[in-house]
């Protein structure tokens, strides 16, 4: 998976699972939808579930790599982050 288009779909699929919402509802939201805004209403608890799912499915420990959690701004910024992380070789050890 290399295109950012695919990672946007991945993020929407993860959000649909974490928030227990239909995939179609997530597909209708634009890329600049804030993750912690009123449309998605992610909170610290569901946000944690999202991070755990990302680590489990993609081996990416986002909170360790992105200390300020800057990637958790919108659907688009998270997709861009995951695309970048997937292109990087895994850290040694």
């Amino acid at each position, binding site marked *: 998976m290399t295109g950012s288009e695919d990672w946007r779909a991945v993020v929407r699929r993860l959000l649909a699972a974490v928030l227990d919402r239909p995939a179609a509802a997530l597909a209708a939201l634009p890329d600049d939808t804030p993750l*912690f805004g009123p449309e998605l209403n992610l*909170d*610290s608890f569901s*946000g*944690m579930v999202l*991070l755990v799912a990302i680590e489990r499915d993609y081996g990416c420990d986002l909170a360790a790599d992105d200390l*300020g*959690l*800057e990637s*958790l701004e919108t659907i688009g910024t998270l997709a861009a982050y995951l695309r970048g992380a997937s292109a990087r070789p895994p850290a040694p050890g």
Partner: protein
Amino acid sequence: MPGLARVIKCLVWDLDGTLWAGVQAEGDAPAPRPDVLALMDELRQRGIVQSVASRNDPGAGARLLALPALAGRFVAPQIGWQPKDVSLRRIAGELNIGLDALAFVDDSPFERAAVAAVLPEVLVLAPPDLPALLARPEFAGGPGTAEAAARPRLYQEEAARRAAERDFAGDRQRFLESCAMVLEVRPAQPADLPRIDELVARTNQLNSTGYRYPAADIARRVADPAGYLVPVARLRDRFGAYGLIGAALVDRQGAPGPWLVELLMLSCRVEGRGIPAALLRLLLGLAAAAGVPALDALYRPNPQNRQMALLLRALGFRATGRPGPADPAATGATVYRRGTAPPLPPYPAWLTLDVQGFAREAL
């Protein structure tokens, strides 16, 4: 995890050969070892609850735990034929505590080795370790607080909540609304200090810095209302009262500078109910009411407290990249900041707030 002292919150007992001598033959009433019962009483006083992981017939096990000497002593006991690591995971899940907060005692070297291999986080003990248990720092518990003494009841109320949540079949919002939660927030009083110290020692996931403040440092802040705001939060719902479940240390830093949240900590028993967000939202409201333009918060990452970084982001705080003040409590921490201009984020809809003793316009 350097800097994080280990705290055991639950001791899990094997039955045969550990709680009583030998294997319980059918029909005989077992005689629990008096020294073990005395140890359990002392641990309970220290706020450490007890559970059971026994490979046994579930029906026979339930009858054993109903014996007068044992009734009411155990939370979330696991009796069945499943491996003990499965039982320990279930206990940690039911109590919503980390595996590293569990200790497990079993007379069988096989069971001890099996648990140690699969769950290295769990503290594994043999019966000869028991006499020295009370002197170990992991079992020091907190000071004798009302919350510590009530902990077995609190965990039983939590089991009732989880059963009720299952009835709502995944509609968490409706479940939370049905709980009729009331969050009471007051300025800390001297009588609250032992419980605040206990939260300082015990909280991990919902602790913004993980710094274990000496008791004198907390007492000094509580005694200085002009310099510090120290709100404490209590939660109750239709299942019972949780007691004092959270507190914050806020340095006013003199007018008009931003207030600094040095520490925000909550018991993990209230996780998933929007309580940390409500408390942080209240601090924003109090700062806004006092004419303070921004609220700063210290966050020091550790492997357990990522949820606090998410909380700060969810409420609109952003990492400034600046380190905290030159203070041992702030070493390795970074400052998050959010302005206090309206609109402030909403409170969770299912929560009723009961806030007194602060500026009235804060809400």
